[in-house]
């Protein structure tokens, strides 16, 4: 068991966003988290990645508790994430965005940056090579020197994913990676996700695009109003009347 979410409750003042949710993710699987808007999916991501401390409950990664740790430590342990509303670094190029995430690789200390320019330059070359590799995987290496936020939306999404992968995670949390993508782009994304899984990274996915979810997920968990209402393989879940009810009920609004 790679990630274990145990009886997680997340409360903001009077609002209970996540209500006693338990969820396990096995190594190597693609696990999707679906549910109507506002059901608490992103909140769970925020807890797992360390942005929120759970009101109640525990999150464990490889058996070790990570809930309550600061985000950057959780990332160092091997859990990366992307954001629903892209959060690229606006002053940086695509390459620089990825280089930030590669910072954990760096071995030079601060004093070397002042007094030892040669080691620093050498390390910089190595990091840039690694970054280019990451960009090639996401097929955006030709945009390396472009301002990240000047790219079209679909490409920005890829930068976001490349950046997360650059932290060399074991588990990556993707928050609506297909949002705003057209069919062709979604198909490309699907292939990329399968390649990512193939390279040994476990994927925890929040997504609204049901076609994509059905195509690649091994396990699907369904949330509604902060509670888990169903979980299982794609076919099992899509036939579950409770799930259909939750979605149809919302669609009417």
């Amino acid at each position, binding site marked *: 068991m790679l990630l274990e979410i145990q009886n997680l409750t997340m409360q903001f003042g009077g609002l209970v966003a996540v209500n006693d949710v338990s969820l396990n993710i096995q190594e190597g699987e693609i696990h999707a988290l679906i549910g109507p808007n506002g059901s608490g999916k992103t909140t769970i991501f925020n807890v797992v990645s360390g942005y929120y401390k759970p009101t109640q409950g525990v999150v464990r990664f490889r058996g070790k508790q990570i809930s309550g740790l600061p985000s950057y430590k959780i990332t160092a342990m091997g859990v990366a994430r992307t954001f629903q509303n892209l959060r690229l670094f606006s002053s940086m190029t695509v390459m620089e965005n990825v280089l930030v995430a590669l910072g954990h690789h760096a071995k030079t200390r601060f004093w070397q940056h002042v007094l030892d320019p040669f080691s620093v330059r050498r390390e910089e070359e190595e990091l840039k090579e690694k970054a280019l590799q990451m960009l090639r995987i996401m097929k955006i290496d030709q945009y390396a020197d472009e301002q990240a936020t000047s790219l079209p939306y679909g490409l920005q999404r890829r930068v976001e994913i490349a950046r997360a992968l*650059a932290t060399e995670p074991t588990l990556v949390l993707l928050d609506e990676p297909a949002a705003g993508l057209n069919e062709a782009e979604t198909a490309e994304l699907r292939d990329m996700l399968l390649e990512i899984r193939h390279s040994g990274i476990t994927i925890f996915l929040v997504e609204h695009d049901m076609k994509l979810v059905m195509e690649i997920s091994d396990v699907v968990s369904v949330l509604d109003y902060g509670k888990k209402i169903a979980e299982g393989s794609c076919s099992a879940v899509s036939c579950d009347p409770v799930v259909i009810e939750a979605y149809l009920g919302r669609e009417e609004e």
Partner: protein
Amino acid sequence: MKTRTTLWKTIALIAFLALLLAVPKIARNDYQVRILNMTGLYILLSLGLNIAQGFCGQINLAIGAFWAIGAYTAALLNVNFKWPFWLTLPAAMVVAALVAAVVALPSLKVRSHYLAIVTLGLGEVINIILVNEEQITRGAMGIPNIKRPSFFGIPINSEQRYFYLVLAFVILGYLVARQITRHRFGRAFRAVRDDYVAAKAMGVNTGFYQILAITISGVYAGVAGVLFAHLNTYISPDIFEFRSTLFVLTMTLVGGMGNLLGSVVGGVLVILQEVLRTFRDWQLVFYGLAVVLVVLFFPGGAVGIARRWRERQGARRAREEEANTVANPPSEEAR
């Protein structure tokens, strides 16, 4: 094309350096050289501020206080314990760094407007302590008789000689700042500034970098303080009041916040202020007006203007070339 511009750049740089070295000879009197020395000191302050605020986004209204700490450390060590410049310098850097690190702590909990008043308040507290602990600092009377430094036996006891010392530190300070901000640390700083939530998610220990950035600004201010103390041979608390912080902020903004060259260009403001001194009261009214105009119309500062101009030149050149290749077959064009 690229090697040609690099060649021009190198020539310009060498010419500029040669000009700088000749300055003390060109200047007509000591007073003018003093203005240039002060410009150099303000450039150092601005470089520090730029790293903390321009690059890392941490508002630092205590930079004047850090400057004071550097100056007072140097002055007290020199006057009371006869420490020479070359010892007071590292000492002041260390003390200023420690003080800056403490002032930086609230940045972990508060940001923007709140951080502004916190750094302002802490800076004020430092100034108040310097004024009131008369036993140690002689309060408002200040500390006189600080010794000028000497370099391998050559006393640096004229405004001109001091100019070379300041110039050396400014160049060194600039190069160090460039090294820091160009690579990993600069990127981490900018990540914290651009989006600290995303920075955290990418494994950046944002708290560490915030404190580091402000501490670096403290070190720069500390160096400026030592240089000032030994230059002026007399320091008093009123020199380092909030007004000085405001000035460093303004010159960095006018030069270009977030760009090291902006700090250098901003130094021009020191000279400008001197030139306008004849207008007395109206000088400050114009100064205020200038700040407002810069904020409204040139927020990127001089560097921003230069960049936009270059972009527009580049775009115009691209359009011209495109039009030309359409109208004429490819051939050598006379410029």
